[in-house]
């Protein structure tokens, strides 16, 4: 499908614009777009530059990161059920954030929470390096990821369990649902470098993942350096997903569903799926974030709740279709 990439890019651009134009402050089209580029600070300029722009940028970046990392992880593990959280980065980032909320660190300065989440993600990478080792294969990586995810989830539960303050517990629960509301340009500046570097690393994996279509032995014989590929995957995913979870919370299903939807449209080639899934992930997350504002403008509907509610039935439909094809 030759038109796929232009169409996806167009869709992302349209959703990005829509994300800028939709919100509780009913601003006119020309007025709001002009405010984006104006220097002085009226209320309209403030709404556009300080509230909607960072939200739209973060939707674009985190969505692209989830989609791309999902496609890369599925390609490496040669399994359509893999998702970026599989190596434990998401749950460890969440644990870092939860600890920051619980200890009150999050309230001390604006970036404390995302920084703690990034520290959690970095910690999980260290444990993976230790467990999956330099010569560890795909199985060692999956098992290490499962162990880290389980431990991080258990520690998160422990924090909630022991939380003396019900309001802190509530805050933690809400944070874990994922959201892009009330993020500032400071969040963008913190997350963007990690996300962009991580995505840049993941985008280099295309040829290696193509060769892995035929298994590790065949890929090795075609000159793929599997050790380097695995490190690039782990570090790229950790940077992109760690930073995304740090600013958006745990948003599930994008990294799982988007590569699934797009795989048939790129002839199932992992190298073509990577950029397509990045665009597709950005489109899905921007659309979901817009939907949270349209469906319940005054209820603060959480992004992660919506992606899961929309993503799960869609996923079930895919499984249903796959089952019919295989039968």
């Amino acid at each position: 499908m030759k038109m796929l990439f232009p169409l996806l890019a167009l869709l992302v651009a349209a959703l990005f614009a829509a994300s800028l134009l939709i919100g509780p402050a009913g601003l006119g089209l020309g007025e709001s777009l002009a405010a984006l580029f104006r220097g002085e600070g009226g209320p309209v300029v403030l709404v556009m530059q300080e509230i909607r722009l960072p939200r739209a940028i973060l939707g674009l970046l985190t969505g692209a990161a989830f989609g791309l990392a999902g496609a890369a992880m599925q390609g490496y593990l040669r399994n359509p059920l893999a998702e970026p959280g599989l190596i434990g980065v998401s749950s460890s980032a969440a644990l870092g954030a939860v600890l920051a909320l619980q200890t009150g660190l999050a309230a001390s300065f604006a970036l404390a929470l995302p920084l703690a989440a990034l520290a959690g993600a970095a910690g999980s990478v260290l444990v993976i390096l230790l467990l999956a080792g330099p010569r560890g294969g795909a199985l060692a990586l999956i098992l290490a990821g499962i162990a880290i995810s389980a431990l991080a989830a258990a520690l998160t539960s422990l924090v909630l369990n022991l939380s003396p303050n019900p309001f802190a517990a509530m805050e933690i629960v809400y944070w874990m649902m994922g959201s892009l509301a009330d993020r500032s340009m400071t969040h963008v500046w913190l997350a963007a470098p990690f996300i962009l570097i991580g995505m840049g690393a993941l985008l280099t994996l295309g040829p290696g993942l193509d060769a892995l279509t035929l298994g590790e032995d065949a890929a090795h014989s075609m000159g793929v350096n599997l050790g380097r590929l695995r490190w690039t995957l782990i570090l790229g995913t950790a940077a992109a997903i760690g930073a995304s979870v740090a600013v958006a919370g745990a948003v599930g299903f994008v990294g799982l569903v988007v590569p699934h939807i797009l795989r048939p449209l790129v002839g199932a080639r992992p190298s073509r799926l990577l950029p397509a899934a990045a665009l597709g992930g950005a489109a899905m997350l921007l659309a979901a974030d817009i939907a949270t504002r349209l469906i319940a403008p005054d209820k603060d509907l959480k992004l992660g709740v919506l992606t899961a509610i929309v993503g799960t039935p869609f996923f079930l439909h895919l499984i249903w279709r796959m089952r019919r094809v295989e039968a």
Partner: protein
Amino acid sequence: MTLLALENLTVRRGECPVVDGVTLTIGEGEFVGLIGPNGAGKTSLLRGALGLLPHQGRSSLSALPPKARAKAAAFLPQGRDIAWPVTVETLVALGRAPHGGTGAAAVNDALDRMALHAYRHRIATALSGGEQARVLIARALAQETPLLLADEPVAGLDPEAQIRTMEVFAGLAAEGRAVVASIHDLGLAARHCSRLLMLHRGQLVADGPPAEVLTDRRLAEVFGIRGFHADTPDGPVFQPTGVVR
């Protein structure tokens, strides 16, 4: 020219050596059959030579950096494992990876040799097992290396495809390239290979032309079988006929 040199190659699984001190060289123009009963170490020898298994001793291939090795030798693993529903053409073109992905002529040539042109736009995972095996052989051919290492390339193929594949490999040897293929069918090996390597418990017990390697004594000792030999105008024929008690 020597395309592969192994010096005292030893591969261990735990304490036990599964390839035990194998020394050999493979030169241009050879079609070498690697034979031996199950567990003799055929697959481990091929994987060790490529550096896919930790080993002692020296292999001229595993010493090379990844890109240079991929241009020196192609490998066809035993498992027919295709993860994604890509087209036959896309799959065969994967063999061009070591050459930066370029070379449509090599892909066409590989499809030609394996008689796969009609399958070009079919989805590889939707083909039968035997058809997939031919596609995977074509992928290895598209790599256009001087040496091809193939692990049981004809297992599970129908007789026509088996003979055609053996003829393709013999053709590569005739062009001055070399093929080393592990083969269970001793009849096919005797008929088509220019040289046989017989492995037994990890050791190289015989190395030479088929008629010299497939002696009654070795067949009884190594394989536990006896068989019927004949020299025909089409070449040597060997057919196992029974088990030695």
